[in-house]
């Protein structure tokens, strides 16, 4: 079976400015994929190429196996643009009805679906209100609803939680997880790393039009031989341990333990017991995407980048 999203050596130049410098990536069916990168990295450009709005300078891209740029490639695709502006003279229902018509959906079907979505995104009370009087969060939720309208197989979300409050973000997250459960492939552009980390199965980091890292979130944030430990009382001299290197505890009393290898954990636990400490907290540490991202963003692009592109 073909991957829903296939991008092959895509290059996009605006005049002499390079927005995408040869991007290759694939997103598998039912995956939530996160494309990370600073402003101007080329995330939006890539999504627009996939939706046929921007013609690539070189390279090929396919959606659900169909070359991009034709209406049929977009038929089963939902899109939430970044900084979208919904036409202000619509109500939520009339907007969804019009977009449903453009999508070619039968009238009764789209009426029912629109009502269901409006209820789902919590705009049921505001059915007489025009978009011009919507709050930012309402607009964002309506934007999401128009992307989900035709039950697409692939969903492109460009900065979906931008400007949405934490409760709204949680709602959006739950909605997306429900969509994934239906087998929908979700492609998220974001610079909000916490979001992506909570949602995405796989991520790629884009920098200046190039993929500098890609892989599963677990893979990318994996840290070797580091554990977090908490004792029943403060550790007076964390520097004198024999079996491991122990960082000073943070304000919750949790210390980071650096081991030589995984087998050393048992030695460390024995030493702690020997010193009379009772263990209250023990957890394998993972890096955050943020660490990785900052690392990627600051390291100059050199020969090693090429190798990480290949490994992605």
């Amino acid at each position: 079976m073909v991957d829903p999203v296939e991008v092959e050596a895509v290059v996009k130049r605006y005049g002499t400015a390079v927005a995408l410098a040869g991007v290759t990536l694939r997103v598998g069916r039912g995956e939530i994929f996160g494309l990370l990168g600073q402003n101007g990295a080329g995330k939006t450009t890539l999504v627009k190429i996939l939706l046929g709005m921007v013609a690539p300078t070189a390279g090929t891209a396919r959606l659900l196996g169909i070359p991009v740029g034709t209406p049929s490639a977009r038929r089963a695709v939902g899109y939430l643009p970044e900084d979208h502006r919904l036409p202000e003279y619509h109500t939520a229902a009339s907007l969804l009805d019009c977009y449903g018509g453009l999508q070619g959906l039968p009238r009764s079907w789209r009426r029912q679906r629109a009502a269901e979505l409006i209820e789902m995104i919590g705009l049921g009370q505001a059915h007489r209100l025009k978009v011009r009087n919507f709050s930012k969060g309402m607009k964002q939720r309506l934007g999401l609803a128009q992307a989900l309208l035709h039950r697409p197989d692939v969903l492109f979300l460009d900065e979906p939680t931008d400007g949405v409050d934490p409760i709204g973000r949680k709602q959006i997250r739950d909605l997306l997880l429900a969509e994934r459960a239906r087998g929908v492939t979700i492609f998220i552009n974001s610079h909000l790393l916490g979001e992506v980390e909570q949602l995405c199965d796989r991520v790629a980091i884009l920098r200046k039009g190039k993929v500098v890292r890609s892989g599963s979130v677990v893979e990318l944030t994996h840290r070797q031989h580091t554990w977090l430990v908490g004792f029943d009382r403060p550790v007076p001299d964390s520097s004198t341990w024999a079996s491991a290197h122990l960082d000073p505890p943070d304000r919750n009393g949790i210390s980071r333990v650096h081991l030589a290898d995984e087998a050393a954990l048992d030695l460390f636990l024995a030493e702690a017991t020997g010193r009379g400490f009772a263990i209250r907290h023990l957890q394998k540490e993972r890096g955050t995407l943020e660490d990785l991202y900052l690392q990627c963003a600051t390291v100059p692009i050199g020969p090693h980048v090429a190798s990480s592109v290949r490994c992605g």
Partner: protein
Amino acid sequence: MIGWMRSFVALLHDTWLEFIDAKSLWLVLLTIAVLFGVALTIHGEPLAAGRTYLDLAARSLSADTNDLDPAEVSLHTIATRLDGSISWIQSAEPIGPVMQPADGQPQDGPKTSWRVTLVRNTLPVVGKMADTNSIAARFGRVADGELWRVHAIRETTAPLAARLGSQRWEMVVNPGRDLTILWPHRLTLFGDALELTPPQGAPLGLEVFILQKLLATGLGGTALLLVSVVITAGFVPTMIRKGTLELLLARPVHRWQLILGKFIAALLFVAGMLGLLVGATWVVTGIVSGLWAPGILLAVVSLLLFYGLLLSVSIFAGTLTRSAPAAMLIAVAYWAVLFVVGILHAQVVASRVREDLTGRPRPLTVADALRGRSDPRAPLEPQKRPFHRTAAGRIVEATYRVLPHSSDLDAMVDRQLMRGFSVGGRMRQVLESGEFSWLGGMGLTVAHATAFLAAACVIFGSRDP
């Protein structure tokens, strides 16, 4: 195909909501409604004119007036066509219905029938006597119009008088088909508060002609076109602004479908409003005057063609600049150029046509300046000579040749109105001169509109959002 229809209906729906969202639309519709309400208070009162028109009918028995414009008939023109006889109304008595004004004498009107004594004298011996049937058929027919219809006729010529060339008939005549149109009426507004006509009144047809032009093509039409251009000029810039366009482009439609859909939708709504405006004009003037000539309904075609042209210009400009004010200004400026060029061209045509018709030099006009005529007494140029000798004149002419002849469309509507209401005069001569045609007006208008629209589609289709 079904999907295609659904997309189109969706665009129609979307455009409709955008259209009725505009406050200015309601303001103008309200103003127009008030205008029509005011027009409904117009009251037309016929003046006593039966004797005048009976005399006219009697006089024209002596002349062949079949190719004469009824509105142009004068004693002078009739006199040149006399057949040597002379007829007059010896006595006339209204036999009803007559009008009973609240104060004053019973009065005849355009619905009144008459008992008439007609006398016809011709030269004894050489003159030809008229037979009763030809009098019955010809009395009241002036040019192509029918003022009176003979209901009953009886010859009462005395034998001796017959020998002297004098005949006499007793007739009952009813008003003919065209009498009301030419009958002088006094028009007042708001009951009797405001006089719209001079004391001697004016032909009802002329009054309705002016009213219809004012309501449908003049004030009402211009206001409606202007507000429609202003509102719809914003449609495409709003649709293609960043953040909105992406929502549409993600749908499985072609870009040209979006442009064309907006165009057709806007055209349909404006067509509906123009239909209402023109239809209301027809009904209102029909109600207040009783004249139902349908010529004004053609104004829907001319106004809509013109609006379609302005719309495609504004769509083109909107696609290019992505700015609603710019699109609106460019469309209005284009309108202004067409208007000025159209007027100047019509002036030049009028100047030439009148000269050809009258053969008389006239005082100099703007048109003469454009034609390079500087001496009013100079000999006239032969017919159909290139009439632009000056640079300004050539520019006007050249501009007119390439621009849509939208003013020709107005001229065609005016001509139809003038025919319907038997309105004559110099303007009628110019409009009937063959210089204007529906095809000429439509051809370049449709061609320009198509070109602008196609250019908009090409620009829009080939640009990254």
